[in-house]
């Protein structure tokens, strides 16, 4: 039955099989082009943000190479397979999280890494995909919109890894994992009644969460976000400096490599989480608009892919990945601009670092797999 449903023709019109190498690799051409432009733009900013360090540039290029490779590999498997593998990925991920809690490597007071014979690995990254995939797998088999008890099961699926990651503690990742799971539930068509009651409940539980759940340093971040001036040289330093960097960029920016805030080391983490400040300082609002445009086009294309997905699994997953991608953008750009508390969320495809980049690229690989599924069916 499931197979039969999968093979019902979609309402999207006739299948078009485009020739060319991207089609051969199961790539969605517009998305690939957009990602490539963003990659190039990101590398340009990164080179400047790392103090014109070629070593840092090559490092990031290598990460991109791994990321693109992972994306292409992922795109070669159809969603039926990914759907079957989803729960296994989830189980393995949760087990590894438990392992991290007992035998992980610490860095800056947080235990996030698992050392697998010389290869350090962050299991929480795996969950960023495994959670929405598993929710999509679970709900994809059921009639949508899902019934309340299925929703409850999904929430449980989400809460377990989120709780484990929050304990590490890693507020940024747990936020992303939780969001990706909830987005999957949302895309599955959960009733608005549930959504609104959840929001009310969330607001009501904010107080106990503040009192019992958040670590002091996390509270400090929120307080600092609300009033960065209160601790100019301490916790507020980063935000004041990043706002200064952004603001001083103006419309046209100070020029590539000319950002005084970032080049003179006032800006902390300028090549990783705070890289948008470098971009804004050196390329100005023009550069920010270009970046937002690129992101917007990627988001639109990603949503578009969902329209043509062949299965519930594909649609749910597509929506979740797209929205999670957006959360990265919003949380990162919001925190650097002093709108949101500082949580460790990188600017997708621009910030230096390999872990989240590879995860994101795998996500795009899944989107590619969803978008090109029609070709497989047509055969």
């Amino acid at each position, binding site marked *: *039955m*499931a197979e039969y*449903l999968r093979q*019902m023709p*979609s*309402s999207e019109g006739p299948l078009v099989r485009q020739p060319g190498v991207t089609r051969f690799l199961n790539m969605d051409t517009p998305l690939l082009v957009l990602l490539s432009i963003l990659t190039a733009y990101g590398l340009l900013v990164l080179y400047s943000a790392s103090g014109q360090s070629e070593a840092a540039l090559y490092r990031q290029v290598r990460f991109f190479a791994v990321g693109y490779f992972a994306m292409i590999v992922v795109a070669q498997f159809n969603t039926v397979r990914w759907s079957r593998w989803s729960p296994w990925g989830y189980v393995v991920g949760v087990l590894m999280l438990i392992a991290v809690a007992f035998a992980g490597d610490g860095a800056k007071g947080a235990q996030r890494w698992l050392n697998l014979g010389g290869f350090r690995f962050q299991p929480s990254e795996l969950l960023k995909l495994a959670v929405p995939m598993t929710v999509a797998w679970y709900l994809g088999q059921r*009639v*949508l*919109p899902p019934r309340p008890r299925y929703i409850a099961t999904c929430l449980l699926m989400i809460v377990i890894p989120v709780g484990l990651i929050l304990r590490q503690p890693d507020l940024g990742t747990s936020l992303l994992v939780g969001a990706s799971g909830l*987005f999957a539930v*949302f*895309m*599955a*068509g959960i009733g608005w009644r549930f959504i609104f009651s959840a929001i009310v409940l969330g607001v009501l539980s904010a107080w106990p969460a503040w009192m019992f759940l958040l670590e002091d340093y996390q509270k400090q971040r929120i307080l600092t976000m609300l009033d960065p001036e209160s601790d*100019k*040289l301490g916790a507020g330093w980063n935000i004041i*400096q990043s*706002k*200064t*960097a*952004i*603001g*001083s*960029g*103006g*419309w046209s920016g100070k020029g590539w490599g000319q950002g*005084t*805030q970032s080049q*003179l*080391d*006032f800006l902390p983490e300028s090549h990783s989480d705070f890289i948008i400040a470098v971009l*804004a300082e050196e390329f*100005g*609002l023009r550069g*920010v*608009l270009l970046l*937002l445009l690129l*992101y*917007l086009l990627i*988001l*639109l294309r990603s*949503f578009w892919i*969902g*329209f043509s*997905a062949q299965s*519930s699994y594909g*649609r749910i997953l597509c*929506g979740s990945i*797209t*929205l999670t991608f*957006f959360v990265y*953008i*919003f949380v990162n*750009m*919001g925190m650097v*601009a002093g*709108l949101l508390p500082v949580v460790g969320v990188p600017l997708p495809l621009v910030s230096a670092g390999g872990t989240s980049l590879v995860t994101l690229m795998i996500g795009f690989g899944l989107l590619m797999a969803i978008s090109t599924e029609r070709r497989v069916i047509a055969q």
Partner: protein
Amino acid sequence: MASRIALKDTRREQRIYSARASVALLFVAGLLGTLLVRYYGLQISEFETYRTASERNRVQLQPLAPKRGLIYDRNGVLLADNRPSYTLSLILERVDDLESTLDQLADLVAIDQEQLDKFRSRAVRRRPYEHVPLRFKLNDEEQARIAVNRHRLPGVVVDAQLQRHYPHGELFAHALGYVGRINAQELASIDEASYRGTFHIGKTGLERRYEEELLGTAGYQTVETNAHGRILRVLDRFDPKPGRDLVLHLDFKLQQVAHEALAGRRGAVVALDPLSGGVLALVSTPSFDSNLFVNGISNRDYGALRDSPDVPLFNRTVQGQYPPGSTVKPMVAMAGLEAGLVDSESTVPDPGWYRLPGDKRRYRDWILRIRGTGHAPEVDLRMAIAESCDVYFYDLARRLTIDSMHDHLQGYGLGRRTGIDITAERSGVLPSVAWKRAALNEAWFPGETLSAGIGQGYMLATPLQLAVATSVIATRGEHREPRIAQFIGGAALSAPLSEPVVADSEHWENIVSAMRDVVHTRKGTAHAIAEGMTYEMAGKTGTAQVISIAQAAVYDEEAIDERHRNHGLFVAFAPIEAPSIAVAVIVENGGGSSAAYPVARSVIDAWLNKEPS
């Protein structure tokens, strides 16, 4: 199940996706719009604000400390200069892990617990981004070790500064005073702008009195720095103006002679130029090395100075208040002459003691215990001064009354601060009926007038006051505020004139010649120093009682604890006809004036026999 069977309806699920994706897109668009508004706000609306903030960040105004004015003696001997000194400091805002940084530094240079404690207390009340000093006076090797390891010690800096140095610390400590690090209290009162980049301030002595002149004017430079404070480029520079140099009246040689003549005993010497009011020597022993205070004295060193029974930190010349003893007799005599109560011919019978009318108590003359009798059956003014006859002055004091004695002696500067240009001066006590009423709320007793007549009882004077009084006699009435500084930045300072002591010139000669006899006649109390003298000196001995002696008891020097022995005093000026130096000497617990007059002789010899420079 049959009724609720729900087939998967692909079209319906696609509609769900479309609906949700549309909502999500709206949501995304809304939030992207928020971001856009925020970035627009920062980059366009508040552009000017942040551009300014960014400029301020990058371009820093750095203060440039002025070079503190140097201090020279009257012949150009350098008494206070500035030497480069290397200070290990931390900028706490840039230190990642303070404890591990401190540990690493302790491996590189010697840092003791006290330095750590002081560092921590400084760190608490620092200004943001201030360099908080940890270790002063790094030597070359320590500097090199820090330099080599600097890359792994963020926030650690070695500052080169010019720092006060006193080449003759101990010899001039009480005259010059010293500078020290600015403390919280001073920070509140100083003009912060003038002290930017300066971490020291005059704490005592001349250093404090002439702080404003010595300090100079701070300069600045605008520099481009990175967040680590490293200067990348100097954009512009406004040079600091060095402080003005001081040239003193003090004479290095004379100071040295006085210091050596006191020979480690507790005592003080003040030498003045009677004509100019300039202080030629100002010595208080024991002294201390003023360099110890420049960077904050260690607890051990300070404890040793504070707890020493010889109180080396106490500046005896201006803070030490001693009964002036017989050194006041010439002034009391002058009061008598001016009041017409005595003249050079009038005499007083001297049995060795004196008795107030209607009082059985005997006021004894010091000579009584030596000879068992008075100085002579009849004593005149000349003899009374030369041989320091107490009975003559008991009688004169009684007739003068305390208040007219007070009024006359006031003219010599007793009982009030001389106004010398160093700190912490005390005023001494010149008693009167009103003074006793105010200070002790008691009536004046006639017997106390007798004590005052020989400089005992309530009367107290500092060695500086005695030197000033002596120069008033030397100049026959001219009275100047004493000054240590002679020139500031090349401009001459003059010692302001106080109200002179107006007296008949014949009376002055009576007094001066009696004081000459103190030294130059066989029976003079300071005759012992006359031998080999190539000039004529006028002087007056004095003895200050440290413990009061019971009515019938006899003062026995040998039997008394060293600390309870009388203080020896001597005042003198020379040459008699054209005085160029007036000296006051006190040797605490010296037993008597014989401890003091050789010191005065050495100082005056050194001054009058100096090689022409």
